[in-house]
């Protein structure tokens, strides 16, 4: 496993040490060379072997020649060492099994959810939402409206009109016309340091882009939009199968999955050069998800395509799909990258004179704050202030929001906050102070409501981002809460006249100016901002000292600024995601080189017919996981897919199969139950389909391989996977393949393997490497076991009626396999997972949970472990939350229940539904947030009775 490229010419077998047994056997001993019959040979060798040990002893006494002694010794050492290698190999294998099984179990979950998802996606937008939208809280919804449009992108085109109108009206309500900005119109700020892009793309441009990404720059949203839009348009014109020819270049390079691992792509370009007409590339899908630099990879590849459209062929993979992106991280990545960093902090947005004005406004406030602090707020800690340096906006005042509210949240939710304090140490005296402060400021009931809301959204936000726990996110979620509250209050109390006169004079003026520039810069209506600010000031005035009132006003102002900016960022991310979906839909489904080599992401099935696929309108598949309607407008179920004969379902199956299938060792074709989608195809299927279309070779990706590539099916099916260290550092090499030869000569494959890992890994022995990867796999496994601890304990106890704490190895294996739903060699894994009771040979089952816990991720998992199926639930939540507001409104909930009713044998009665919704809405604000949603499932699933009625998996029946 070296960093240097090792070029192999068609290696038939990969890693097994025994594979060249015959070669070795033949040359091992001169006495065997004459023997022609293998049977004889084996007999001879066998005799020798059995004599070996005693012969060796005799040799010690000098009765044997020196040479022969050395040979015996060599054989013994070799035999012994191969034993050791084999042990390593089996550990490596089951480690691989663990990673793959856990990975596919996730994919399977996602596939299983899809009927449910799609039903929701299809039906909810078609319901008249107008009446409800006016009653709902549109501030936050509207912010992410554009992104919700992605997920509703339609298969058939129907219904988009009404949705469009609805969207428009919503937007008007909130923003007037200001918000409807095209990303391309956004000016690039003068202090932007990232790469610049101009169309048409040039080589220098591409190089600048790559260099920028290397130094971790984020491309400006304007350029992102530019590339995405141009690429979508250009790709749209391609046929479903790219048809490159090697006539000119005499060679072509094929890359497999990259999965957001930018380093791997850079290694490929470094070794193999940038794409050009002399050096064409086929990229075989799965550019995004999992890795953290998906956006960069996607943009580089699209730029390469724009630069030389005749040298870059892009195939769609199963991860070029909005629904997959929801679970596997690409959407999170885009939001993160385009929410805050670029275009979203005030210094970059507010330019020139207006910026000066804002700064001045904040300074005035700051002075006031200073005074306040000096007289009656001496106890306020300056800690947050010191952090403000790291925050680009430099608005120290805003941090007050953070401390006061986080402290309060802890007071109101003693139980939850104990979890919080695990991860964060809060100063108790500060807590008390802030609590007192807020109580002074606000009427009791209002304060409680705010804080309750803060508490829950704070927590859900906290959990969602627990990995990237930084100050801004916590602050932000608090801000949203305050502003939302203020907005509601403003609507309710518009009739109450606010007394301006009570304010200091200069302050008044500054305030007006600030409102002015805010509304302009953030393209939000001024009345809105004013209302938010005023209502807070008013709330403050109700029972507070003037100084505190000012403090609050200032606090709120900054909060408003930040929320507005955040919303703007969300809109950007949403729009970018929408454009990305357009690119997905436009990506060709496969590539055929010289009419001889078929390259698709997954593979084929027995029904695969390239002619049918060529005629499909691929643009309508926004998501491959989204089933089309059949002729009666019904949604096709996964269970019917392989029996249904309608044309739309068979067309869909064609697409699903080439993107999701895996080759198998056996014969024939069967549904890919391991992944949950696509097919398994045997060698005979490969043979038949290739023959039928006059093809010679099938190249596919989709599966991680230890060596980066693997031949199967009599060398007719080749897997190429280009993301090295996919499961864990050291788990696998990446590889790409170059096909060399023109259209008239045979194409010879040359493989290049690489490893983009850190240098320290390269010098490890096989034992260390295996050990490292194994440890990580076992950790993964352990977290899965812990998630299901309650189920497991019960099941173990059922096998142990006398409560001895012991069960047989066999029972242990079966139980753990059922509970974790992972098909793994548990018998072999047992030594790593649980202890054995030596006298009886039984397993001490409690040791399954107690053995060394993963201390590094402790504070993350403590919270996460509470939620079985958390990822699935989160996905469901995001689907039900149609408008991406972060809350499920009652309307959304009832829509979802209606749909559920249609899928379940017995529909849910209206009464019961309302009851359910009320239970879930723990803070009684009329909406369900993610925290409440997860919380409900936790409570419910520990209560065995109700469990089944709510488990989503029941939908399958």
């Amino acid at each position, binding site marked *: 496993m070296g960093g240097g490229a090792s070029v192999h010419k068609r290696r038939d077998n990969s890693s097994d040490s025994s594979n060249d047994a015959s070669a070795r056997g033949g040359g091992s001993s001169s006495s065997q060379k004459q023997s022609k019959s293998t049977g004889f040979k084996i007999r001879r060798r066998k005799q020798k072997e059995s004599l070996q040990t005693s012969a060796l002893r005799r040799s010690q006494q000098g009765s044997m020649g020196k040479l022969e002694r050395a040979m015996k010794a*060599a054989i013994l050492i070799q035999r*012994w060492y191969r034993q050791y290698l084999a042990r390593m190999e089996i550990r490596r294998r089951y480690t691989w099994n663990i990673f793959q099984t856990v990975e596919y179990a996730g994919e399977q979950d996602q596939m299983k959810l899809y009927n449910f998802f799609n039903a929701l996606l299809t039906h909810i937008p078609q319901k008249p939402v107008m009446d409800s939208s006016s009653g709902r809280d549109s501030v936050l919804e509207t912010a992410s409206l554009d992104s919700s449009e992605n997920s509703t992108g339609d298969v058939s085109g129907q219904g988009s009109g009404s949705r469009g109108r609805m969207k428009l009206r919503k937007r008007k309500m909130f923003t007037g016309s200001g918000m409807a900005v095209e990303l391309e119109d956004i000016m690039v700020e003068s202090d932007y340091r990232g790469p610049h892009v101009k169309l048409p793309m040039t080589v220098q441009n591409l190089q600048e882009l790559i260099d920028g990404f290397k130094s971790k720059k984020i491309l400006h949203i304007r350029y992102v939009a530019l590339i995405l839009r141009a690429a979508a348009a250009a790709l749209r014109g391609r046929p479903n199968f790219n048809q490159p020819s090697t006539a000119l270049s005499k060679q072509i390079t094929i890359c497999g999955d990259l999965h957001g691992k930018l380093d791997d792509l850079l290694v490929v370009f470094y070794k193999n050069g940038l794409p050009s007409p002399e050096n064409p590339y086929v990229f075989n899908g799965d550019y995004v998800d999992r890795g953290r630099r998906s956006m960069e990879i996607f943009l580089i590849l699209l730029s390469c395509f724009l630069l030389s459209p005749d040298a870059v062929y892009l195939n769609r993979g199963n991860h070029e799909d909005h629904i997959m992106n929801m679970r596997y991280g690409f959407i999170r990545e885009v939001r993160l990258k385009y929410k805050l960093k670029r275009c979203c902090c005030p210094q970059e947005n507010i330019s020139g004179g207006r910026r000066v004005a804002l700064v001045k406004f904040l300074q005035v406030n700051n002075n006031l704050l200073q005074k306040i602090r000096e007289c009656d707020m001496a106890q306020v800690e300056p800690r947050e202030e010191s952090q403000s340096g790291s925050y680009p906006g430099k608005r120290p005042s805003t941090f007050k929001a953070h401390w006061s509210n986080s402290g309060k949240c802890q007071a109101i939710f003693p139980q939850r906050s104990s979890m919080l304090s695990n991860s964060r140490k809060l100063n108790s005296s500060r807590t008390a102070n802030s609590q007192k402060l807020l109580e002074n400021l606000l009427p009791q009931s209002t304060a409680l409501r705010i804080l309750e809301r803060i508490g829950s959204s704070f927590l859900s936000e906290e959990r969602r981002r627990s990995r990237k726990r930084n100050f801004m996110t916590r602050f932000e979620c608090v801000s949203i809460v305050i502003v939302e509250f203020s907005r509601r209050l403003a609507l309710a109390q518009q009739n109450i006249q606010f007394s301006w006169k009570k304010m200091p004079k200069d302050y008044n003026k500054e305030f007006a100016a600030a409102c002015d520039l805010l509304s302009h810069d953030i393209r939000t209506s001024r009345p809105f901002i004013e209302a938010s600010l005023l209502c807070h000031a008013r709330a403050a005035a109700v029972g507070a000292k003037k100084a505190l009132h000012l403090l609050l006003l200032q606090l709120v102002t900054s909060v408003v600024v930040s929320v507005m900016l955040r919303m703007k960022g969300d809109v950007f991310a949403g729009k970018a995601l929408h454009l990305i979906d357009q690119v997905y839909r436009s990506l060709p489904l496969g590539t055929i080189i010289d009419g001889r080599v078929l390259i698709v992401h997954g593979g084929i099935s027995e029904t695969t017919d390239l002619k049918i696929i060529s005629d499909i309108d691929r643009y309508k598949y926004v998501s491959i996981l989204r089933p089309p309607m059949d002729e009666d407008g019904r949604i096709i179920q996964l269970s019917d897919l392989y029996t249904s004969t309608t044309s739309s379902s068979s067309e869909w199956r064609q697409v699903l199969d080439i993107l999701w299938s895996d080759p198998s060792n056996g014969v024939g074709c069967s549904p890919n139950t391991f992944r949950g989608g696509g097919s398994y195809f045997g060698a005979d299927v490969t043979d038949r389909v290739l023959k039928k279309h006059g093809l010679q070779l099938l190249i596919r990706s989709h599966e991680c391989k230890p060596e980066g590539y693997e031949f199967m099916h009599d060398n007719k099916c080749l897997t190429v996977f280009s993301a090295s260290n996919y499961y864990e550092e050291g788990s696998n090499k990446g590889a790409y393949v170059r096909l060399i030869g023109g259209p008239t000569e045979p194409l010879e494959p040359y493989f290049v393997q690489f490893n983009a890992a850190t240098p320290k890994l390269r010098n490890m022995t096989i034992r260390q490497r295996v050990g490292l990867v194994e440890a990580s796999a076992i950790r993964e496994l352990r977290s899965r076991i812990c998630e299901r601890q309650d189920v497991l304990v019960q099941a173990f106890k059922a096998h142990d009626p006398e409560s001895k704490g012991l069960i047989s190895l066999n029972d242990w294996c079966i139980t753990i396999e059922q509970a974790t739903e992972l098909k793994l060699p548990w018998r072999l894994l047992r030594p790593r997972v649980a202890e054995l009771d030596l006298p009886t040979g039984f397993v001490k089952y409690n040791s399954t949970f107690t053995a060394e816990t993963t201390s590094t991720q402790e504070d993350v998992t403590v919270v996460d472990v509470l939620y079985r199926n958390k990822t699935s639930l989160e996905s469901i939540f995001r689907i039900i939350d149609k408008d991406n507001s972060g809350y499920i409104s009652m309307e959304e909930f009832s829509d979802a229940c209606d749909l559920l009713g249609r899928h379940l044998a017995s529909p849910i009665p209206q009464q019961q539904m309302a009851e359910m919704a009320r239970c879930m809405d723990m803070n009684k604000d009329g909406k369900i947030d993610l925290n409440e949603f997860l919380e409900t499932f936790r409570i419910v699933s520990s209560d065995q009775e109700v469990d089944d009625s709510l488990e989503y998996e029941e939908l399958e029946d």
Partner: protein
Amino acid sequence: MVGKGHSSKNKENASTEGEADPDAFVFSTDGLIGDVQRKVMAVFEVFDQQGQKMVDVREVGTMCRALELYPNEADVHEIIGCVEETTAKGMVKLNTFIKHMTKVIFEGKYKPVSHDDIMQAFRAVDKDKKGVLEPPKFKEMLMKEGENFTAEEVDEMLNFAVNKGDNLVHWEEYVEKLYRSLHL
């Protein structure tokens, strides 16, 4: 959630599953034999991830060794001769493999190389009786004598065996280290 295509269910209920699936292996009712059979099956399944109940013959050597047998290359060949499918060349079926390996294990064939044996072997190689071996010579011997090691195997071995300080193989120390990891 685990798909039907997997043989996992065999373990749960061998008898009923056996009726449904003619290919399913029926475990012996004898506890001891049944246990060995399950162990062989567990190893087999590591190499048969898709649940095809077939693996490539090239895996046989590794599978045997994973069962804590110590065959040499000729033995591996012999085992392959016994388990390879006659109709599908190059493949080994689950049932055949379990039956044969259970037999082999109960016959007590391919006994482990004992600690004594391996020490003797190294002593024989260490002609100067210094307790150390020079990597180039050791390498040459392993690649030219006996069941010749491939360059890959030998490099892998030396990478771990060579003492980084004096660049020699302290074989006693090395044997101890490896022996311990083999008998965890």
